[in-house]
């Protein structure tokens, strides 16, 4: 879990802060195919920066360029002020934790972790003490002599982490670090990963396709699509203030209403949407051309479901409940609006016994607050 808000620094808001990792206009082409397209990023010391995107969006290629396995076609990478141009992987102050963990099968846990330190030709006592310390941190004491195939998936993940951290890299790259673990173990490991990161103060760049993983781990997220970075922000910013349809739909669930701006004021806009069957009122200004086609996005948990007609004339529609999925803590309702559009609404199950429980085929009103929707233009 990210650090508590009062302790949390936001160096990206500080104009004087020096970025620790500077990615300047990186492009990578494989033949005609552009895997990474003019990406520029500033990442600060101690961050957990998540590159989030679907498969083939270029996130892994970007990670491999940071590690030195791929050479950029254009652009430059600086780590702690030093250009990485022409620096081979074995000379970079960067370590990587592979998706497959890539543990050496013919070596014990101890030998795996010590491998990187042996390459530095450190004295044996130092190697031994640093390996023992690191195995302690990842809670693998007593497993030193085991071979990778004698370990569980979670243990192997921790060996891989220990092996990549023991060299005290300036930057640790993690490729889908939790991808191979089952759901329970994942949640547990997420917290451990953040704890270890805070303890050692190493800068992390995490590649993931799992938005939940990105939200819980990251100090900031860079959303990638087709080789571009489409938005960079804190998990909160990405979720509440997405800048495009792609980001809105990629992160979490959302209901989109297509429409046109009919009233454009500095403090509010009104959108007419056939998909809603009525006007939409947004309580903030929108920078879009008048009459432009826009999409208003409303998260399922920000919608209100009730039998009574709301008192206001906008941001509301009536419909029929078509599906209910009971999740325990909350229920998901699919409501078919009179306009023909189906919307998804999440309502917390606050009371154990509800006499007036909504059920299938009930006629209901869907509404939301004027501050709840986000308008995107592309």
């Amino acid at each position, binding site marked *: 879990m990210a650090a508590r808000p009062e302790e949390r620094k936001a160096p990206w808001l500080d104009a004087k802060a020096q970025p620790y990792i500077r990615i300047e206009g990186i492009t990578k082409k494989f033949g005609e195919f552009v895997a990474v397209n003019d990406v520029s990023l500033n990442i600060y010391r101690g961050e957990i920066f998540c590159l989030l995107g679907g498969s083939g969006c270029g996130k892994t290629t970007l990670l491999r360029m940071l*590690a*030195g*396995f791929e050479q950029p076609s254009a652009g430059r990478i600086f780590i702690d002020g030093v250009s990485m141009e022409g620096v*081979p*992987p*074995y*000379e970079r102050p*960067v*370590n*990587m934790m*592979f*998706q*497959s963990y*890539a543990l*050496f*099968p*013919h070596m014990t846990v101890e030998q795996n972790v010590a*491998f*990187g330190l042996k*390459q*530095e030709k450190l004295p044996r006592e130092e190697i031994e003490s640093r390996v023992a310390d690191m195995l302690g941190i990842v809670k693998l004491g007593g497993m030193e002599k085991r071979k*990778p*195939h*004698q*370990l*569980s*998936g*979670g243990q*192997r993940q921790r060996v891989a982490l220990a*092996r*990549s951290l023991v*060299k005290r890299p300036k930057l640790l790259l993690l490729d889908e670090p939790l991808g*191979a*673990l*089952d759901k329970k173990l994942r949640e547990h490991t997420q917290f451990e990963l953040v704890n270890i990161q805070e303890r050692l103060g190493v800068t992390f760049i995490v590649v993931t396709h799992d938005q939940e993983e990105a939200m819980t781990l990251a100090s900031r997220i860079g959303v990638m699509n087709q080789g571009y970075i489409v938005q960079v922000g804190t998990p909160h910013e990405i979720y509440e203030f997405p800048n495009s349809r792609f980001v809105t739909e990629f992160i979490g669930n959302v209901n989109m209403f297509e429409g046109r701006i009919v009233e454009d004021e500095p403090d509010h806009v009104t959108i007419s949407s056939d998909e809603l069957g009525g006007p939409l009122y947004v309580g903030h200004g929108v920078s879009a051309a008048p009459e432009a086609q826009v999409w208003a996005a409303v998260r399922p948990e920000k919608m209100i479901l009730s039998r009574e007609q709301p008192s206001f004339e906008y941001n509301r529609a009536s419909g029929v409940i078509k599906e209910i999925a009971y999740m325990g803590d909350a229920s998901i309702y699919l409501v078919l609006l009179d306009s023909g559009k189906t919307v998804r609404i999440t309502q917390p199950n606050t009371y154990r016994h509800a006499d007036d429980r909504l059920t299938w085929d009930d006629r209901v009103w869907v509404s939301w607050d004027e501050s709840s929707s986000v308008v995107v233009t592309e």
Partner: protein
Amino acid sequence: MNQNRSMFLLSSLVLGFAFLYIPILSMIVFSFNESKLVTVWGGFSVKWYGELLGNRQMLDAAWLSVRIAAVTATGAVVIGTMAGLALARFGQFRSRTVFSGMVTAPLVMPEVITGLSLLLLFVAFAPLPFVPDSRGFSTITIAHMTLTLSYVTVIVQSRLSTMDDSLEEAALDLGARPAKVFMLITLPIIAPAMVSGWLLAFTLSLDDLVIASFTAGPSTNTLPMMIFSTVRRGITPEINALATIMVAIVTLFVVIAGITMSRQEKRRQREMRAVAIGT
């Protein structure tokens, strides 16, 4: 019904194995025959093994065969590993299929053709530098390498194709230079495949008659050639004893190669299972 089928299966099993092993078994039995007549049992004796030890020609031929086999196997492992690496690592280059086909073609090439073409080559190129002037140890060894390296290539390549590429990247990432990555990571992982390749090449070279006959000089005699020419003058119990020893050696090597390969396979499966459970 089930009973019938198992009777049928059992009898075909017995017949099949009898067909395969009765000739060899009878040879082994007759090698312990006291009598000088090969087909007449005259009581148990190991005297033909003793005679064999006194036969200078036979021992020389055997020693030559072992030397050729050892050099062949070592050379084939070096070249075959390089070929396997190239085929496994270069990715999809143009005409890759042609190359891998060409590497493995000697597996199915008739030995007579291989032998004949090598003989022509050695004769024609003898005046050139680095080509042996006269035929003998070196020409047989070279010929055997061409025969056996395709086996090594296939074995090494299949091991490499199941190896996770990120293992080498991880070693690079941890600060090992490429040469060291090869020595510390790649080589230990493909070593079992190289060992079984070596044993297979050794065995193939040791009992090859056809190619050796083509590429040997007039005064060189490998053990199979020696046996073949002796047998033409009639089978002696001594030959039975020699053949028994060869069967023993070859069996030993094949069994060792088989055990190494199956161990390696078992370990791989265990690793995969462990991964599957871990996920």
